[in-house]
Each structure stands twice: as C-alpha cells, then as structure tokens.
C-alpha cells in the first residue's frame, strides 16, 4: 500500500507531461522538445522558487518556459512550415544545455517546495485514502489534469473540435473551424502542462536542482503518449506502470547488488519495449479477434499529426 502511494506520487510529473503532449498531438502538433522542456522548466521552477521564496511563482515560471517553447514549435510549424520533429529535436538539446548553463549556481541549494496536504475525510477511506489522498497539491493536480483532459477531449464540443483539427484539418476548416489558431492554442496549453511536469520534479518529487535532473523522462513521456493511444486515462495508466517499474528496480537493488548500477536504466528500456510490443501488428490484430480487448490496445495516431495545415 505504501508502495502504491509512492508510485502515485512519483509518477505525477510524468502524468502532467503526458496529458500535455496528448492534447498537443491530438490537435496535430508533435512537441518533440519534451525532454529539454521538462528539464528547463524544472530548473526555472526551482530557481524562481529559490530567488523569490514562492512556490507559486516558481510554478508560473516553469509553465511560462515550456509554453514559450511550445509556442515556438507551433510558430515554426504553422507559419514557416518547418518540420516539427527537426525543430523539436533542436529545442530538446538547446533547452537541456540552457538548463545546465543557467542552473549551475543553483545546484545543491534548497528552496520552498510544495507542502504535504492530506485531504480530510477522503484520506480516511481505507486503502484508497492513503494511496490517493495523502499527498500534496501537485499530486492531486495530476489526477485533475487527467480527468479534465478526458472530459474536455471526449465529452465537450470544443474537445470534438480539437480532435477534428488533428484528424481532418481540411474538413474542420471547411466547417468554419479556425484550424491554425486552435493548433496554436492547444500546443501552448500542452506546453503549459509540460511546464507543470518540470515544476513537479524540482519542487516536489526530486526536490532541488542538479544537472540532468530529469534526464530521459521527456522521452519516456513521448513514448507513453503513444502507448496510451492518445487517450489521457490510458496514458496515465502507462505513467503508473512506469512508476511501478522504477520502484521495482529500486527494491531489487539490494537483492541484486551486481546489477544495482544498471537497474535504474532498465525501466526506461523496458517501457520503450512495452511500447514496441503493443505497436506490433499481431498485437493490434488481437483487437479484431477480441473486440472487448480493443479498448486496451494501441490505436492509430491522429491522421493530421505532424503536418502543417494550409488553406489552398
């Protein structure tokens, strides 16, 4: 039970990142900069919190940084028709190096962080209470983000519009939907969630800043979005699965001392190969023979993903 609570808490930054990327990709824009964005946001969140003493200003700074990077990707894709992968990849490396350079003087310092806050009544529920409701605002926010994204995407008119922009931009445009304006909006909103992921690392889960604090989490988040079939709830499940793998690796360290140095790397590799597995054809075909399984299996990406939309 304690382990489950640990998984829920430690996976919360990934949940934010995965929700943000899902929203952007659903609207048709791939933000490949996640690994660097999260790192730069983590550094910004921590340094602002350190300099001002306010966690909230730190969070705002973290959100602003990743939202700005996302805006740049949207601009490069929509206005300049540059390849989203190319721009995102460059920004990944650039943001990571910026975080190392600018965060150098904050390494090892301590700053205000997100305070624990158990929810009265709910935290008293047996089993569920301690696992889900005895954390802090950052962790609760991660549940809210998943629920809100699910509701928005699948239960509201605006959400359907968003999906139309990502799936059939021409059709959406013909029906009077401002495709590119919405792509800007949702890419930036997605970036804001990525920024929250960074802040959740440096102000909550990992507390503090050091070089490469969040190395490779962004890549894992990108993989989990695919694993989750562009569905926020399934993606969140992927995050908890990854959290479970990490915890298992941690627990195995004393048991397998020879492997203790490589165990922390294994969840990253495993997660990617879980993704590969669900992506294989024979696995996808399971959905045709067993319709009840279909909801659990990987689905296709939004068909307009990665391609700039142009009127003529």
């Amino acid at each position: 039970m304690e382990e489950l609570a640990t998984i829920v808490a430690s996976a919360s930054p990934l949940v934010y990142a995965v929700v943000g990327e899902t929203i952007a990709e659903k609207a048709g824009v791939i933000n490949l900069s996640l690994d660097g964005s999260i790192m730069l946001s983590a550094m910004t969140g921590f340094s602002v919190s350190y300099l001002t003493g306010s966690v909230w200003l730190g969070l705002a700074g973290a959100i602003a940084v990743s939202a700005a990077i996302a805006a740049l990707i949207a601009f490069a894709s929509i206005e300049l028709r540059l390849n989203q992968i190319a721009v995102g990849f460059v920004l990944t490396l650039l943001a990571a190096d910026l975080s190392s350079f600018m965060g150098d003087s904050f390494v090892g310092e301590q700053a205000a962080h997100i305070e624990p806050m158990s929810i009265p009544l709910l935290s008293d529920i047996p089993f569920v209470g301690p696992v889900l409701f005895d954390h802090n605002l950052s962790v609760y926010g991660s549940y809210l983000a998943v629920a809100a994204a699910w509701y928005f995407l699948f239960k509201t008119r605006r959400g359907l519009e968003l999906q139309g922009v990502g799936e059939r931009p021409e059709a959406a445009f013909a029906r009077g939907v401002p495709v590119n304006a919405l792509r800007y909006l949702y890419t930036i909103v997605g970036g804001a969630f990525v920024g929250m992921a960074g802040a959740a690392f440096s102000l909550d889960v990992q507390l503090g800043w050091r070089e490469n604090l969040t190395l490779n989490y962004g890549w894992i988040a990108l993989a989990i979005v695919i694993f989750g079939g562009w569905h926020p709830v399934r993606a969140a499940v992927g995050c908890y699965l990854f959290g479970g793998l990490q915890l298992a690796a941690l627990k195995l360290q004393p048991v397998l001392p020879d492997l203790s140095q490589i165990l922390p790397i294994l969840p990253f590799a495993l997660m990617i190969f879980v993704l590969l597995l669900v992506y294989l054809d024979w696995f996808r075909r399971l959905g045709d023979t067993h319709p009840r399984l279909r909801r659990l299996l990987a689905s296709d990406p939004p068909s307009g993903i990665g391609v700039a939309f142009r009127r003529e």
Partner: protein
Amino acid sequence: MSTPPAGPRRSIDWRRYGVAAAPFLAAVLVAMVLLLLAGVSNPFDAFRRVWEGSLGSADKIPDTLITWAPLTLAAAGLIVTFAAGLWNIGIEGQIVVGAIAAAFVAREVPGPAVVLVPLTLIAGMIGGIVWGLFAGVLKVYGKVNEIFGGLGLDFVATGMATYLIIGPWKRPGQASTSGTALFRREAWMPTIADYSWLALLVAVAAVIGVYFLMRGTSFGMKLKAVGSNPRSAFLLGIPTGRYMLGAFAVCGALAGLAGTIQATGFHHKLVPSVSGGYGFLGILVVLLAAFRAAWIAPISLFFVALSVGAVQLSYPPLELDSAIGGVLQGILVLLVLLASGLQARRFHLRSKGVGTTLVDEGAGPVLVEE
C-alpha cells in the same frame, strides 16, 4: 566575345550571404547576453578562451581533432539515414555498441598493434551495424517508429556498457563507473606527435565515401527516392524496406567507427558515457549542413571547437558551466532553421504555388513542407 550572363547563379547574391550570416551573428549575440547575465564582464574574453582552448593553441589542436573525428563520422552516417527519410535517434546506441565491440577486441585479443588496431575498427563497425540493423528491423518489419525504437536501443546499449564496466570488465580490485582498466598500448589508436592520424584518416575517408555514395551510386540515388517519397519509390520497384535497412547498416558502421575512436583513441578504456553525445550532436550538424555531405566536415570542426573550447570557461576565473558551447550550437541551428523557413515563406508568397525545401536536389527528409 564575352560570355553571356548565365542566370542568377553566376552573380554574387549578397542578400543570400546576408541571410546566411544573420543567424550566426544573432547566435553570437545571444551567447554574449547569456555570458553577461552569468556575470562575465567581457564576453569577448570568453570567446578568446574558447578559441585558445580549441584551435587557437598548438597543444589543444590534437584534442580538438580527436573529438572532430567521431562527430564527423556520426554526421556522415546520419546523412545516409536522413536521405532515406529516417530519424536515426538510435545512433547514440550504435556508437556505444561499436565502442563495446572495439573494447572487447582490445581486451581479449593478443597481438601487435598492426593486427589489433584494424581489428578494433572492424569490430566497432560490426557492433554498430548490428545495433543499426536492430532499429532497422523494428522499423521495417515491426512498424515501430525509428525514433522510439532507436531510443529504447540507446537505453539498452548504455545499460550494457555500464553492466560490463562494473561487472565482467571491472578494474582489478574495484568496480567503478569511471570505466574499465586502460587498454593495452597496442590497441590504442596510433599517434604521430599527439595527432591521432588514423582516426582523422578514417573520418576523412568516411566523408568522401558518403559524398560519392549519395552522389554517384545507384544505391544513393534510390535511397533518396525512398526518402523523398517511399510510396512512389515502392511502386517504381525499389524494395524500400531493404534500402532502409541498408541505410541503417551504413550509418551503424560509421557510428561504430566513431565509438571505436572514442574508446581506443580518446578514453583508452570503456566508460559508460562513451558516446560523448556525438550522435545527437551529429543530428544538429547535419541539420545545419542542410543534409549536404560536403558541409559536415567544417561544421563539425566548428562545433567541436565550441564544445572543447567551452571547457576552458569552467576553470577559474570564470567558472561557468561548459554547457554554454552546446547552447550556442543549439541556438545557431535553431536560428538557421527558422531563417530557412522564413526565406522559403517569402519565396512562396512571391511565386504562389511553388513549394520549396531546405534540401538541395530534393534529397533527404523535407524540412519545409510543400
């Protein structure tokens, strides 16, 4: 008789040079601002230190060139995978596995340098090819996006190197992630007056080889066809899958050579971070070169001068983080991409209906969508 003017190509288009220079100047400006923000009173002094720490002083040039070789090899390999329209993110892993294979030969095979050094190079190539083909098979037969397949293989390669270093290949007495014991002298890349001539030779040969592979061979031509439009290439009878595997194999071989040079020419042992990040940096080099093989050698030299020289900034009196070199590289590539997009957009607006690409000769992945 005077020759008639032969169109716009002959006359010097100063505006074009201006457009090329603007991102460079802007990147330098951003770097200066960052240095000022970091408390450096004279950014030009920092630039001078970078220069003197890389190409500007005789004793640093060999260090810079031994770094240039693996980066250039990685970039040369990436030219080939990019031509096939592939994002070979797995190149980091291909470098690492190449280094592991070379380290195996260096540790286990007896013999004089004349035998051992070529063997390490061959082993490194094989290691890189195997790892490249893994990503290729996942892509071609498993329909796994090469970005994520490659990333997973990167993690596995790093895990393997780390396992070997602290496990079976640990230094006598103590296991530490700082690396294996040094290889025997016979396995080191040979040097003349500190210059690792063989590493340089291998890198130069790779660049020339890739240049002619892409320009003058049917393999290169068909690869470009696969990259620019896989569907029509397939309909024209080109086995696209096999060509993609071929691209992964060539890139893996060159990445494996880069790993060999890193292990036997630079570290002289196997370390966990043996790739040095040159695979990912190579992607930036190729983007900046706009996928043209002829440009990767000079751009690589500029990049390693920044990376190696920036280390000087971490010493007193400045004591900055050496990541500033990477920041400058990233900003430069980003601005060049944005500038090319702006240029294409202006071109497009002027002559409506004609799309344009960053890529000469229509090769490689299209950076600017039509």
